[in-house]
């Protein structure tokens, strides 16, 4: 039996929006998943984003905190993907 999925809206920042639009809808397990698993799901569901995600240079921001790949995300979290930053 397939696990129930829920939709998570992900904001794509910087150059990632050029590839995947400003927002991506990703189906994730109802009980959430790790950021590493989320990256895999995004790559499956939005193949155009697979390349930047495997670069190792994209970080996830969950509820306004940049998190490590083992952090968990749930439906309802405010998730964004950050490509390399550059101020100044």
């Amino acid at each position, binding site marked *: 039996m397939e696990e129930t999925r829920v939709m998570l809206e992900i*904001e794509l*920042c*910087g*150059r990632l929006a*050029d590839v995947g639009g400003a927002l991506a809808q990703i189906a994730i397990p109802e009980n959430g998943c790790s950021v590493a698993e989320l990256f895999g799901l995004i790559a499956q569901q939005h193949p155009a984003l697979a390349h930047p995600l495997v670069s190792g240079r994209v970080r996830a*921001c969950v509820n*306004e*905190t*940049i998190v490590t790949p083992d952090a968990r995300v749930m439906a309802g979290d405010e998730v*964004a993907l*950050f*490509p*390399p*930053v*550059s*101020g*100044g």
Partner: protein
Amino acid sequence: MSAEVTLATKEFDPAELLGAFTHGLGGEGAVVSFTGHARGAAKDGAAIEALVLESYRGVTLASMKAIAADAMARFDISRCRVVHRTGRIAPGEAIVFVATASAHRRAAFEAADFIMDRLKTEAVFWKREESPDRKRWIEPTSGDHADAQRWQE
């Protein structure tokens, strides 16, 4: 001991900021300022119409504040001021302003230098140069990373 950090959505005047910073001094002998201005031409010489800086909610300001706090902790400075634009910036306009004050000029120089190196590589902004016929995302250069690396020792 104070750090004041602002994410600016409109054009600002570096001279005015230096004036206000100087006015607030409490006897420090040394003030260093850095201003970064948007360029009118890309590295390959092509004209730039605007530099566009994207930021992300509270995270951008928090990243700026963390850098200012690190500078306050690391160098013998008594105050610092950091202002960074977000949004669309015309050539010549200021992108970033940093000021530091200290009893010692070396600390003031190093802290301003450090803050700029960190802003270039760690502040949460994404920037692109726009011209009529192209958009180009700008990431930190290897020089920027090398500059930031100097402070790791």
